[in-house]
C-alpha cells in the first residue's frame, strides 16, 4: 500500500470538516508548491545535478529552511543513485514521501496539557506582531465553547492599546480580563491573575505578554520572571508555554524558538497567519530542526480557523492533488 493511501485511510475516521479546513488553509502553499514541482519536472526530464539544485531552490522558496533542505536533497540524491532513478517524474513520488515523512516520522505530543480538575495556566510568548493577543482571544472563545471557565491576564503592559485589545476579545468571548494600568509590572499582573483565577475557580488562565525580540536580554529576563511568578503560585504552572510564530517569518523563526525556548521552556508552537502565505514549509523546518511540537495553526481570520495541529491532516492538505491523482489512477 502506498504511503498516501495509508494516510488517506488514517484520516477516513476524521470528519471531512477538519480535512477541508486544512485543505483550504493550505491551498496557497499547495498551489505554489505543486506548480513549481510540475514546472521542475517539465524543465528537467533527467535527474542530474541541475535538477537537484532547482529542487533545492523550490524547497527553500517555501521557507523549509536551508539545513533541512540540504539534508533532504542529499537523501534524495542517494536514493536516486541507489534505485537507479533516471527520469525526474519517477523521483516525484519519492519527494512527496520524504517531505511527508519529515512531518509525521516522530510522534510529537500535539495536544495541549489540560488539567481536567484544576486550573490550567497557559503562557503566551513571542516577538512583536505575531498575533499573541489575537490567538488568546480566539482560544478564549474556543475554551468557553467547550464549557470551561476562562480568564485572561493582560500581561502586555508595554504596547499602547494592548490591554484594550485583550479586553475587546474578553468581551466578545464573555470572559473576565485581569488587568492593571499600562506600564505596570507584568509579573504583578500575573500574580493578581493567578490569585483571582484560583479564588474564582477558573478552569483556564490565558496569560498574554508583551511582544519582545529575542535578542533583548533584559526583556527576556522579564519574561523569565513572569514565568517564575506563575510557578511560585502553582508549582506545575504554567502547564503550557506557547510560542506564537508568524508563518511568514523566515529563518529567524528558528532563532526565536531557540531563544524563547531557553528563557521560558516553550512547550508548544502556535503558527499564525498560515493561510496568507504560500510558505507553509516552515512547519517542516520546525519539525526537523527543533524539539518543539507545533500545537496550533492559524488557517484564517475566524475563531474556528485557529486549529489544533494534526500532522496527518497537514500532509494531506499539502499533497491533496497528489493523493487524488493516485486515487484516480488506482480506480
Amino acid at each position, binding site marked *: 500500500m502506498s504511503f498516501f493511501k495509508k494516510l488517506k485511510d488514517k484520516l477516513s475516521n476524521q470528519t471531512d470538516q477538519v480535512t477541508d479546513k486544512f485543505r483550504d488553509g493550505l491551498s496557497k502553499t499547495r498551489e505554489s508548491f505543486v506548480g513549481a514541482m510540475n514546472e521542475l519536472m517539465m524543465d528537467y526530464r533527467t535527474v542530474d545535478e541541475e535538477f537537484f539544485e532547482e529542487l533545492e531552490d523550490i524547497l*527553500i522558496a517555501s521557507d523549509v529552511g536551508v539545513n533541512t533542505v540540504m539534508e533532504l536533497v542529499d537523501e534524495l540524491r542517494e536514493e536516486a543513485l541507489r534505485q537507479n532513478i533516471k527520469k525526474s517524474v519517477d523521483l516525484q513520488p519519492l519527494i512527496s514521501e520524504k517531505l511527508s515523512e519529515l512531518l509525521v516520522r516522530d510522534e510529537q505530543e500535539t495536544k495541549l496539557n489540560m488539567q481536567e480538575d484544576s486550573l490550567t495556566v497557559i503562557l503566551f510568548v513571542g516577538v512583536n506582531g505575531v498575533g499573541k493577543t489575537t490567538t488568546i482571544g480566539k482560544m478564549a472563545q474556543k475554551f468557553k465553547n467547550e464549557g470551561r471557565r476562562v480568564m485572561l491576564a493582560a500581561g502586555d503592559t508595554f504596547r499602547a492599546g494592548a490591554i484594550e485589545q485583550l*479586553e475587546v476579545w474578553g468581551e466578545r468571548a464573555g470572559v473576565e480580563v485581569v488587568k492593571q494600568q499600562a506600564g505596570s509590572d507584568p509579573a504583578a499582573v500575573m500574580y493578581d491573575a493567578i490569585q483571582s483565577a484560583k479564588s474564582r475557580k477558573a478552569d483556564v488562565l490565558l496569560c498574554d505578554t508583551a511582544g519582545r525580540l529575542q535578542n533583548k536580554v533584559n526583556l527576556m529576563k522579564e519574561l523569565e520572571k513572569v514565568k517564575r511568578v506563575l510557578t511560585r503560585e502553582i508549582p506545575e504552572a504554567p502547564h503550557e508555554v506557547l510560542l506564537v510564530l508568524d508563518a511568514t517569518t523566515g529563518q529567524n523563526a528558528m532563532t526565536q524558538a531557540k531563544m524563547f525556548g531557553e528563557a521560558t521552556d516553550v512547550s508548544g508552537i502556535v503558527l499564525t497567519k498560515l493561510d496568507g502565505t504560500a510558505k507553509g514549509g516552515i512547519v517542516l523546518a520546525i519539525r526537523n530542526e527543533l524539539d518543539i511540537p507545533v500545537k496550533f495553526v492559524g488557517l484564517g481570520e475566524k475563531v474556528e480557523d485557529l486549529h489544533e495541529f494534526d500532522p496527518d491532516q497537514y500532509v494531506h492538505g499539502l499533497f491533496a492533488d497528489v493523493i487524488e491523482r493516485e486515487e484516480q489512477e488506482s480506480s
Partner: protein
Amino acid sequence: MAFEGLAERLQGSMKKIKGKGKVTEQDVKDMMREVRLALLEADVNFKVVKQFIKDVKERAVGQEVMDSLTPGQQVIKVVNEELTELMGGEQSRLNTAQKPPTVVMMVGLQGAGKTTTTGKLALHLRKKHNRKPLMAAADIYRPAAIKQLETLGKQLDMPVFSMGDQVSPVEIAEKAVAEAKEEHHDYVLIDTAGRLHVDDDLMGELDQIKAAVKPDEVLLVVDSMTGQDAVNVAESFNERLGITGIVMTKLDGDTRGGAAISVKAVTGKPIKFAGMGEKSDALEPFHPERMASRILGMGDMLSLIEKAQTNVDEEKAKELERKMRSNDLTFDDFLDQLAQVKDMGPIDELLQMMPGAGKMKGMKNLQVDDKQIAHIEAIVKSMTKEERDNPAVLNGSRKRRIAKGSGRNIQEVNRLIKQFDEMKKMMKQMTGMSKGKKKGGFKMPFM
C-alpha cells in the same frame, strides 16, 4: 546565533585557496556556493539570489579575483558592492506635496508594525524636520487599534484624527485630510489596517482610500524578519497600489534582514526608513551599504559611528578617540563613556551594531540596563584615583574595600573589571576597523 555570517562561511573555502598559488574557477564556484547559502539563510528570496550570484560570478571570474593577491577580500568586496547597488543608491526622503498637507498612507500585513511606525514617523517629522503632522486612525478592524494610535498620540503629544470603528476607512481618510487642511498640518499619516496581500476585498479598500485622498507617499511597512514570501507581499502591494517607498521594521532584532533585498529587488522602490527599537524615536533613515554588510554578517560599524557622532559631544569624542587609539583607557573614561552611551540609547542596541560583537566571549555580560549602570557608577566611584588610572593594582583587599564602599558584592566588582578589559579589547578592534576602512580596504579578522 543560528546563522553564520558570510565571513565565517567563506573561511573554509579561503583556507583551501591559501595553500595554492592560483585561484581556479572551481574555487570561485565554491565561494559562490557559500555566498548563495549565506544569502538564502539571510532570507533573501531565492530568485533574487540566483540573479545576484550570476552577476557577481561574471564580475568575480574575471581578472578581479584571479589577479588579486587576496582573493577573499576581493570576493567580499565585489559581493558587498553588488549588494549595496542592488539595494539602491543612498537614502531617500519623503515625497512632499506641492501644496500641504503631504498625505502619507501606511500599508502592510498584520503585525508588520504600521501603527508603531506611524507614531515614529510623526515624531521624526516633528523632531528632525520641524513639521506638524496629523495621525489618522483608519484601522477599524483590529480590536483597539484606534486606541493604540490614540495612546501613542498622547505619549508623543501628537494630534490623532479618529472617528471610531463604525465609519468606513475611506471616509476617515478623507475627513482626516480635510481636517489637516483646516488646522494647517503639513503632513497627514494614515494608519490603515493590516491585511493579507491575497485578500481581494481589503486590498480593494486600499484602492479606494488611495483614490479618495491621492497620497504623495504610499509606504509599505515590512517586518524585516519576513521570509521568502516577502517578494510576493511586496509585489502584490506594489502592483495593486503603486507603493512609493518601503519601511523595514524590527531591524533591532537579530535577523539578517534579507527581506530588504528581496522587496527592493522586486519593486524597485526605495527603502526609506528602518525601525530600530521599541522606543518612539527609534526610526532611522535607511542606509543600503550598512544593510549590505549586515546581511553578509559584517556588522554595522557605520551606524554606530554616526550614532556616536550625533549624541556624543564633539570635544569629548575627540579625546575618547585619542584614548582609544593609544589604548590607555582608564576607569574614569569608562565612567564618562557610560554616561554618554546612556544618552545614545539602550546599550544592547549599540552592541548589536558592532561586528563580531555577538561572537566575542564575555560580550553577553556587557549587556547592561540603566539600573546596572548606576551600580557600575557606584563601584567605580569607590575606587581611588590610582585604581581608576591603573586597574592592574586591584588586588583582593582593594576589591573587598570597593565592594563595601559601593554596597555591591565582590563578584560584581570582579565582573566590572572583566567587562572593562573586554571593552578595552573591543575599542582596540574598533579603531583597527576604522583605520582599515580609511585605507579603502576591508579588514576581516581572518585575512
